[in-house]
């Protein structure tokens, strides 16, 4: 817990006054001279000395120490909050009671400059960290920071699967990000994400959202209509779309997938003239297409049947109506639950897929003249048959328990047949199953290519005699493929009988064995990869390396503290970064963390050249009472377009620039409780000026680097202190501001103003006249200089400072000897006031 650069004066006082302390001669072996001051030998002596002091002064009595040897936790936390956060964390080694104490610290201070770090002589490896979004995700602030980082680096494709129960905050600019072409977001079952109220990414082509809920009463039904280039839209597991429904308006949309967990009476309106694929899953919606959607080729429906028992007829009617909208489809895929209620098939149908079918004793008839591709997947099979009338069938896939499939026609065009027979629960009837399978094979004997799964092969191989008895007449068979799963590949052996039974008449039969690939859709982990950046400079450059190492340690420290601390609310957070900040996304994440933990006081000094993104909810944060933000010279922060923190009392912003064309002059009028407002080094307020409207404001400090022609309007009836620094503004107060007591002006004289100096001075005088009630007026020396340039103007515009009692002139220390108070100024202010004390104050001490 040492800081090598700081000499502990307290300690030295005690040592010096005692005079008899042990030696402090530097031991010659240590390398750094400063280290010796506090090296171990001295430390031991300090221990003895403390003891001695206590005994001598007689303070150390047993009863006193027993009674007060333990300060209560809350006091300890208060004291720890005054320490550097790194040292506060180190208290975990003091004793067992202290071990978890730091985790409840309400104040966090991450200041790079004061972060105690001394480079070790060993070369450390840079750490690389991988974070997976998991159910247990205490690093969720990292993910927040990563989202900011990605946006800042113009990410084009973003995939994010949240599996944790913590809420992720998107940066403000996420939903209007210019660079994103593909977004895939998945919320978790515990914490569905909120749909944006408006999505307007101009470059977005593909959008997959899953586990989302509509954003409550503010949800705009046209939320998904803001992306002109959208080609693919997938909304999975959308919870609770309300009665306004959903309106999807996308000119270029070709693929649309919707899946609703619950859809009330809302309609789904789709305007997508280029739509070719439509998939729907959930409760029957009322879908209306504002166009014919003649182009839709592929349609997929999976209707769930939960909870609709009372309204089944209406339900089916809705379904039929919806299906009717898609009557031009060439391919229709229906789940079994849909199939059970719908037995008509569209005439143009070329592809039909039926999944998870439960067939009881009734037959399933598939009658489709144009059908080219048929996929059947059975979960349960009773006695019912499957009858297929599809003369043009080219592809047939079958998965499940051996069915009885009969085809009415000769399938002359059949090319590919795929069988994946599941073997479970067949134990009692295995032989019969194999017979069924063989019979089914016969129906497809025209196939040119046959693919069998390993389980199919295994079943067939169980009864080689049956294979002998029933020669399979695969006359056209040219290819036989066996699909082997990857984990089976080493163990699977092709039984000899199988190829034989297929080798019939075919002259050449190619047999392929290849892996089957498991497709699971969307259950990938969210994989986040963080790497420290390496400097491009020479390795010899020790300073840079030391800074890098310190930055690594500092960043890791932030991560660990946020990870390990109790998730209690924070009171105060201070962050100061460094010029070199490759981990600025950590700071972004830290800001998100602070907001989520209801921070009350936030101080953030950016000194780096990377842009920091505030979370969406930052400028309306409920808990903030005090906010201090400072941008850097390289990258000024952008002023918010609207600031509306209800609890905010104190706001200091410095090195900001207005947010461009969207800047609202009223940006600072949204905080009702604001008492102190300080805006330093604001660059470039535009011609709309600034409007500060704050009922409770008592102190206002403005400092402009550049003010155009804009006015500054102030409505603040309780204002008592006003300080202004910069080029003369046009300030108007929409009230008398009778309460302003202290006024301070520091007018700068930039060289550019030479041509309109007169106007300049006039502006200053006008502004001064707005503040004619104060009791105390302080002017900087440059202000005085400016005013004296045009004594005639002063005469023409007399000011009546009725209440003025004190006037101070602030003179810079180096000017002190040279500054003379011009007589005209004195006269100017002396007007009506009876007693006027004039102080000449230098910045250091008063005279």
């Amino acid at each position, binding site marked *: 817990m040492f800081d090598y650069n700081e000499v502990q004066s307290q300690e030295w006082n005690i040592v010096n006054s005692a005079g008899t302390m042990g030696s402090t001669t530097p031991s010659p072996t240590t390398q750094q001279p400063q280290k010796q001051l506090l090296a171990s030998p001295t430390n031991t002596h300090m221990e003895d000395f403390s003891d001695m002091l206590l005994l001598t002064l007689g303070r150390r009595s047993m009863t006193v120490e027993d009674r*007060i040897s333990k300060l209560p936790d809350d006091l300890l936390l208060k004291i720890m909050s005054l320490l550097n956060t790194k040292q506060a964390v180190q208290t975990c080694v003091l004793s067992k009671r202290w071990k978890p104490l730091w985790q409840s610290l309400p104040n966090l201070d991450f200041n790079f400059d004061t972060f105690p770090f001394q480079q070790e002589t060993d070369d450390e490896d840079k750490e690389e960290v991988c974070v997976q979004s998991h159910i247990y995700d205490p690093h969720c602030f990292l993910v927040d920071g990563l989202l900011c980082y990605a946006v800042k680096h113009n990410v084009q494709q973003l995939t994010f699967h949240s599996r944790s129960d913590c809420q992720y905050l998107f940066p403000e600019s996420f939903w209007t990000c210019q660079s994103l072409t593909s977004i895939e977001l998945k919320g978790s079952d515990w914490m569905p994400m909120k749909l944006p109220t408006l999505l307007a990414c101009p470059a977005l082509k593909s959008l997959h959202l899953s586990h989302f809920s509509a954003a409550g009463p503010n949800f705009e039904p046209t939320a998904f209509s803001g992306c002109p280039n959208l080609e693919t839209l997938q909304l999975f597991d959308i919870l609770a779309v309300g009665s306004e429904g959903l309106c999807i308006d996308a000119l270029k949309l070709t693929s649309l997938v919707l899946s609703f967990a619950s859809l009330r009476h809302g309609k789904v309106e789709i305007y997508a003239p280029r739509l070719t694929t439509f998939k729907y899953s959930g409760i029957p919606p009322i879908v209306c297409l504002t166009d014919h959607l003649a182009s839709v080729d592929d349609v997929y429906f999976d209707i769930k049947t939960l909870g609709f028992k009372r309204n089944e007829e209406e339900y089916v009617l809705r379904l039929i109506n919806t299906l009717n909208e898609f009557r031009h489809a060439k391919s229709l895929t229906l789940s079994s639950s849909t199939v059970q209620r719908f037995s008509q098939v569209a005439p143009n149908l070329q592809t039909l897929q039926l999944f998870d079918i439960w067939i009881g004793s009734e037959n399933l008839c598939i009658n489709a003249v144009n059908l080219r591709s048929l996929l059947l997947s059975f979960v349960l099979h009773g006695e019912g048959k499957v009858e297929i009338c599809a003369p043009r069938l080219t592809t047939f896939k079958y998965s499940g328990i051996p069915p009885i499939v009969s085809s009415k026609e000769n399938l002359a065009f059949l090319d590919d047949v795929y069988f994946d027979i599941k073997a479970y629960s067949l134990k009692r009837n295995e032989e019969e199953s194999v017979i069924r399978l063989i019979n089914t094979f016969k129906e497809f004997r025209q196939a040119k290519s046959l693919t069998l799964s390993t389980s199919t092969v295994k079943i067939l191989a169980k009864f080689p005699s049956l294979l002998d008895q029933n020669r399979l007449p695969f006359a056209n068979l040219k290819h036989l493929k066996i699909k082997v799963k990857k984990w089976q590949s080493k163990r699977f052996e092709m039984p000899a009988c199988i190829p034989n039974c297929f080798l019939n008449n075919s002259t050449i039969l190619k047999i392929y064995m290849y892996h089957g690939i498991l497709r699971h859709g969307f259950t990938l982990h969210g994989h986040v990869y963080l790497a420290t950046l390496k400097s491009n400079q020479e390795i010899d450059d020790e300073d840079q390396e030391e800074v890098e190492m310190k930055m690594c340690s500092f960043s890791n420290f932030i991560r660990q503290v946020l990870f390990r601390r109790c998730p209690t609310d924070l009171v105060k957070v201070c962050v100061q970064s460094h010029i070199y900040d490759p981990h600025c996304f950590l700071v972004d994440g830290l800001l998100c963390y602070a907001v989520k933990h209801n921070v009350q006081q936030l101080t953030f000094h950016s000194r780096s050249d990377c842009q920091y993104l505030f979370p969406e909810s930052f400028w309306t944060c409920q808990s903030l009472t005090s906010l201090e933000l400072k941008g850097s010279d390289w990258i000024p922060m952008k002023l918010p377009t609207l600031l509306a923190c209800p609890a905010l009392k104190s706001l200091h912003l410095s090195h900001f620039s207005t947010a461009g064309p969207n800047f609202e002059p009223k940006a600072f009028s949204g905080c009702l409780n604001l008492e102190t407002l300080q805006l330093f080094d604001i660059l470039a307020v535009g011609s709309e000026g600034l409007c500060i409207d704050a009922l409770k404001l008592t102190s206002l400090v403005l400092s402009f680097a550049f003010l155009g022609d804009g006015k500054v309007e102030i409505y603040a009836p309780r204002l008592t202190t006003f300080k202004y620094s910069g080029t003369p503004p046009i300030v108007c107060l929409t009230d008398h501001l009778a309460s302003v007591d202290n006024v301070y002006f520091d007018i700068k004289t930039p060289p550019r103003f030479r041509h309109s100096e007169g106007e300049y001075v006039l502006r200053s005088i006008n502004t001064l006249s707005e503040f004619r009630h104060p009791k105390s007026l302080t002017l900087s020396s440059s202000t005085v200089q400016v005013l004296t340039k045009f004594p005639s103007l002063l005469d023409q515009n007399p000011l009546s400072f009725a209440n003025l009692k004190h006037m101070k002139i602030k003179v810079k220390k180096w000017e002190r000897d040279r500054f003379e108070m011009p007589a005209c100024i004195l006269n100017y202010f002396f007007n009506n006031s009876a007693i006027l004390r004039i102080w000449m104050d230098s910045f250091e001490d*008063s005279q």
Partner: protein
Amino acid sequence: MSMAAVETKKITLRTADNHEFEVEEAIAMEFSTIKTFFDENPDASEDTIPLPNVTSKCLSAIIEYCKSHLAFRARETSSSIDEQVRTYDEEFVKARDNESLKELILAANYLNIKALLDMLNQAVADRIKNKSVEYVRRFFGLENDYTPEEEAAIRAENEWAFEGVDPDDD
């Protein structure tokens, strides 16, 4: 009990070691605990208030502190006054040893004197800032209940908090 404006009301306080102190009402009102008590029990102003958690040594120091700060506040604010306040606070803390600082903190906490408590907390923080673990332990009167192995394990587990600091430091 109304008195003439010139005479100031006195409140009697009794400390843990049975000393009685008479203080002016203005000073007693600096102790928020007592102020709250009087707000709720306006008739109790004549009684002696027992302070079982405060020693006489502490209380006299606290009374001195409050007197001085009241005097400072009565004068007009200026940078020179702030300077004097700072100097006074420094002197107040400087001579005290660690034990008495802790006593004062407990007393200020009990009496709920915010300004004094904040100042004392800062003083303690300054005293233990960047000091060795042993020093801090003794300052707070802590028994080290870790075995050396346990302590080493904690340091290793939290290496991110201890790195870049002299490993000889104990």
